């Protein structure tokens, strides 16, 4: 099982240039989605046949605060002109969609908002995701981002054989 994380305070732009550099949409993302995007890049950048559509990989993102950092930014923009660019990230599951789109992963794509970091609950949900007949691997991440400059991340690339 491969693992990756991003330390709070790291320059996400520098990490983008190091790990991707070819996806300008990154700059439009909220911090939650940027973190998810980068964690996925770190875990799969050297995979063969990248960007070939596949349905056997799930994306499961967990957090406590969801997209509240971007929600606050959007609320602030309403004092002037409500920003459509911020509005589109006011859902906590946009991050899992961004990762799926970037990597052409057509399997299950879900975001879970938990009351707290609960490892047992997270891995129980991951195990459930493998119960269908098509899922063979999963990108799993805990990305908690209560503010743009305050976040905790941990991500894993899990094969079915790692769990069963």
């Amino acid at each position: 099982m491969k693992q990756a994380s991003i330390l709070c305070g790291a320059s996400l732009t520098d990490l983008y240039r190091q790990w991707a550099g070819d996806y300008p949409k990154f700059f439009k993302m909220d911090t939650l989605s940027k973190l998810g995007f980068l964690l996925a890049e770190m875990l799969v950048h050297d995979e063969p046949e990248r960007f070939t559509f596949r349905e056997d990989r799930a994306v499961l993102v967990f957090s406590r605060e969801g997209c509240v950092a971007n929600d606050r930014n959007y609320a602030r923009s309403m004092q002037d002109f409500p920003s459509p660019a911020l509005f589109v990230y006011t859902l906590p599951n946009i991050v899992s969609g961004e990762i799926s789109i970037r990597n052409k992963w057509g399997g299950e794509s879900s975001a879970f908002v938990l009351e707290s970091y609960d490892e047992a609950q997270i891995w129980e949900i991951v195990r459930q995701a493998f119960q269908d007949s098509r899922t063979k691997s999963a990108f799993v991440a805990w990305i908690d981002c209560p503010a743009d400059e305050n976040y905790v991340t941990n991500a894993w690339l899990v094969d079915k054989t790692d769990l069963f």
Partner: protein
Amino acid sequence: MENLIDELKLKVIDALNLDGMTAADIEDDAPLFGDAGLGLDSIDVLELIVLLEKNYGIRLASPAEGKEVFKSMAVMAAYVAGHRTK
């Protein structure tokens, strides 16, 4: 024109919250929309329409018209230069 292009790049970066991007990252003639260019989409057109109205007094009739105006930074700057009221 060169100054106006640079000014517009900075305003677009600010309006679209392109955090971490610099003016140097945007080529004057690169398409703003689609994966080949800046990766903007229809939602962003709304932001750019507001940008033109607030900063240059230009009111576009529709998002469809915006797509023509926002083909690239160079096209956008030429349009602003020819239509600005402030």
